[in-house]
């Protein structure tokens, strides 16, 4: 079914991004906005706005029945969930399907598999992908056998735990012995379950992900990789494509593995398969698949010349991709910096407020995705993303030069931003060398 009227179930820059493509495609749009976003830029761009609830996400953007009722009630034939919020929620996908409304994303069952860490890991193993070596252990001797086979260091986790709690690092056999008993007692006390899970610890890791696209007619392609190793507390700060200093062979292996996983879970629409690459050994391991458009999708768009939102809508409409892998041309290098409303001097706490001044540079080779302008209020209920600056050039150095100029030209007043941190990072010799790992940013800040 061809999408004619799209319900946008998101806010901020991604809502603006989606609405712009709809305008180009001539699609009618309805935006579901919380009370706090009623006067947003996205609300101005949409053909119609319905207020779906109070500002707090749990009262608006996270309410499945409300989103469905709003989409059906406004005569929309499809819902674009953006990223975050309900974008990977199987309940939304199946509820929409029951009402004959297209969910712009993969089927509910695919979301359910990819969203369950154990099921996703099992699917990856079945598809022949390497996963971080790890297993449950029952005794110290068993733990010792695992560590001896895989090599140190190893992470000792509570099998019934989560959220980073109860994780200990053992660097050798002696330290494994000393943490084992303690970890078991803690696991029993904290989770009522003394089972332990051992996992190999990747000391020097890069985060590399592969963009895939699959239509409903059996065509599946990858659109290259993205390097997202510049992270703080697992939040990506800078992303780029292609990944610097990555061998052709490893790149091809990652892309093939991504396609294999996507095929194994019958993936449809666009998605991203994430990997951790062990810099010391050159091995890579499957992490997870993100079943949605990603924040960092523009770097891929700039090098492959495709509009990924348009592609999502085309696939959701049941049309074919219209191209094959051999037609995909990746041209040049693109880097994205996330400009955030946060106070770098005070542990990066979010800094909501009203933007008194907001001027983004206009430069050749620079794209800015933003929902902000002077007067925009950054509410405290949502993420702190103000704008994405994406620089594109023939070589990495060209893109970096454009980004450096852009970061210097930004004028923002009224809220604190991470502009200076970004400028410092792109000027850093280690970043310029492309030789960074996921712990680099936090070490650089220490």
């Amino acid at each position, binding site marked *: 079914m061809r999408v004619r009227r799209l319900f946008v179930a998101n806010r901020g820059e991604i809502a603006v991004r989606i609405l712009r493509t709809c305008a180009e495609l001539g699609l009618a749009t309805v935006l579901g906005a919380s009370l*706090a976003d009623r006067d947003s830029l996205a609300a101005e761009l949409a053909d119609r706005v319905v*207020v779906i*609830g109070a500002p707090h996400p749990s009262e608006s953007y996270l309410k499945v029945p*409300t989103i469905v*009722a709003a989409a059906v*009630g406004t005569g929309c034939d499809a819902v674009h969930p953006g990223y975050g919020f309900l974008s990977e929620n199987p309940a939304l996908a199946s509820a929409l399907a029951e009402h004959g409304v297209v969910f712009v994303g993969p089927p509910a069952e695919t979301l359910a598999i990819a969203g369950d860490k154990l099921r996703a890991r099992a699917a990856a193993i079945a598809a022949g992908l390497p996963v971080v070596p790890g297993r449950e252990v029952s005794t110290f001797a068993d733990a010792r056998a695992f560590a001896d086979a895989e090599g140190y260091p190893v992470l000792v986790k509570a099998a019934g735990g989560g959220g980073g709690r109860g994780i200990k690092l053992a660097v050798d056999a002696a330290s494994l012995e000393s943490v084992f008993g303690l970890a078991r007692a803690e696991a029993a006390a904290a989770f009522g379950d003394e089972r332990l899970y051992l996992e190999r610890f990747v000391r020097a890791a890069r985060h590399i992900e592969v963009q895939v696209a699959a239509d409903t007619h059996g065509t599946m392609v990858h659109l290259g990789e993205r390097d997202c190793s510049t992270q703080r507390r697992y939040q990506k700060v800078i992303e780029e494509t292609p990944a610097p200093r990555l061998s052709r062979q490893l790149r091809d292996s990652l892309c093939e593995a991504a396609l294999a996983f996507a095929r194994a879970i019958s993936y449809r629409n666009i998605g991203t398969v994430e990997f951790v690459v062990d810099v010391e050994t050159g091995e890579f391991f499957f992490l997870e698949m993100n079943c949605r458009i990603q924040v960092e999708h523009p770097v891929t768009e700039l090098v492959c010349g495709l509009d990924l939102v348009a592609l999502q809508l085309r696939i959701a409409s049941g049309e074919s991709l219209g191209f094959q892998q051999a037609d995909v041309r990746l041209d040049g290098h693109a880097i994205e910096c996330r400009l955030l409303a946060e106070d770098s001097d005070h542990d990066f706490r979010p800094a909501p407020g009203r933007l008194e001044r907001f001027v983004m540079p206009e430069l050749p080779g620079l794209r800015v995705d933003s929902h902000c302008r002077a007067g925009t209020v950054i509410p405290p209920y949502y993420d702190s993303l103000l704008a994405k600056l994406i620089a594109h050039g023939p070589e990495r150095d060209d893109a970096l030069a454009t980004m450096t100029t852009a970061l210097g030209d930004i004028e923002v007043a009224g809220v604190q931003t991470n502009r200076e941190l970004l400028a410092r990072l792109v000027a850093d010799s280690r970043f310029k060398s492309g030789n960074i790992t996921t712990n680099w940013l936090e070490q650089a800040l220490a």
Partner: protein
Amino acid sequence: MDLSEEDVREILRIIDRSEVEELRIEVSGFSLHVRKTATSPPAGGEREDGGSRAATPGTGTQIVEAPMLGTFYRSEAPGEPPLVAVGDHLEPDSVVCLIEVMKLMNHVQAGVSGTVVDVLAEDGALVEFGQPLFSVTADA
């Protein structure tokens, strides 16, 4: 501090839905003092049971707003008389309409006592969160 009328409204909305009874903000060149009156409508949890958002407590004309987005129904079932008509007298717990969200019928309570002077939404139409449903002349 540069606050627009909409900002102040937003602050009032937030306070209205919070447990806060009184708020005083004073910064250079700006002060704001808000206090909830005894007749303020039920907030937070109670509203989830179907209480509406009645605006501006006190006497005069009050608006009963939709507490959620959904399909507005004036009667319990097709063919039945409306739950509320112009001229009817309401108590705060009077059920004034139904709002359907994915086949789940939510009873909406008036939240005010007074007399219905106007019905502002159309039976069977989609209403948004906060949309005016009824205009009520509050009891003195």
